[in-house]
């Protein structure tokens, strides 16, 4: 079988991804187990926020595989793709596949909710007050924002575990390495 090497992920997508992994892990760990003065949690949270904003913009103006319009597929395509998912062969997909595309959107969406509820949370300890807490109604900053922030932190953890599980599934079950392209930018795909 012939193979060819194609460029899938540009440097923006790759830097975004691995910086996000670091900043997310730090924000999560510090949120859950960090010191009571949450300064560093805030800094890593801001970092996540900045990364996601850059990625959103890149989703409109970036290279081909980075653009939302090119990786958010309709239900027909998703069902089609799902049918072949159990096959023990590489998908050879260039860019996010129809299932992965939506999971990317879900992750970005949850991250936005997490950052927004962090920025607007007032946990009433007078030291870890989100910088935008004063601009929203108190019922939101004091009650809703911290509640959502906690629930979504768990949701994010679940989604990330599924995300990593999917990567492992592709490697083990389908014999397709998705991580290497996310590092080098290049993917080897089989040709007919």
């Amino acid at each position: 079988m012939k193979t060819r090497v194609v460029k899938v992920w540009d440097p923006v997508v790759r830097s975004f991804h691995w910086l996000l992994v670091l900043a997310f892990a730090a924000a999560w760990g510090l949120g859950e187990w960090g010191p009571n003065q949450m300064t560093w949690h805030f800094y890593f949270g801001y970092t996540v926020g900045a990364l996601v904003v850059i990625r959103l913009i890149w989703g409109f103006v970036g290279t081909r595989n980075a653009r939302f319009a090119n990786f958010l597929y309709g239900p027909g395509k998703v069902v089609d793709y799902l049918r072949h998912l159990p096959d023990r062969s590489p998908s050879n997909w260039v860019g996010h596949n129809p299932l992965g595309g939506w999971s990317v959107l879900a992750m970005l969406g949850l991250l936005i909710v997490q950052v927004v509820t962090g920025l607007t949370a007032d946990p009433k300890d007078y030291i870890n007050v989100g910088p935008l807490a004063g601009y929203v109604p108190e019922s939101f900053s004091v009650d809703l924002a911290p509640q959502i922030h906690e629930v979504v932190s768990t949701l994010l953890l679940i989604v990330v575990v599924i995300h990593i599980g999917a990567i492992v599934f592709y490697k083990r079950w389908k014999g397709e390495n998705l991580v290497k392209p996310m590092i080098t930018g290049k993917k080897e795909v089989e040709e007919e």
Partner: protein
Amino acid sequence: MRKSLLALTFILPATAVLAQSPEDAVEARQGYFEMLGAQMAVLGPMAQGKIDFDATKAQIAADNIAALAKVNVAPLFMEGTSTDDMADTKAKPEIWSNMELFGEKATAFHEAAAEMPAAAGSLETLQPAVGKLGGTCKGCHDEFRAK
């Protein structure tokens, strides 16, 4: 008008001698935390540079916090006043099932509060003291305050 005022002077002491109801206890302890919050609302923004440092105001708030920390609020945490029992409280039942840890968190607060009066004189000393004090609020909230 005068008559009803007169009546009031009789009613007030009369209700005061009744045993404290769970609702009264919750209201009182929430009032206590509001009082703490009112001092922190001065100290927190000052320490974080959101409002200008004012030694006089800082000293009053710091002294108030230290005084409030000496109030024994244990009776206000009466049995049957957790989120399991009532709607208008965020006090988790863990307070009563893990009194020891609750006591530790309270002690951390008492200690940090006791350091406040000496720290309020300058912004340099106020900042770390407020950080530590606010940290004890979070430390207890994490375990014992419902979201």
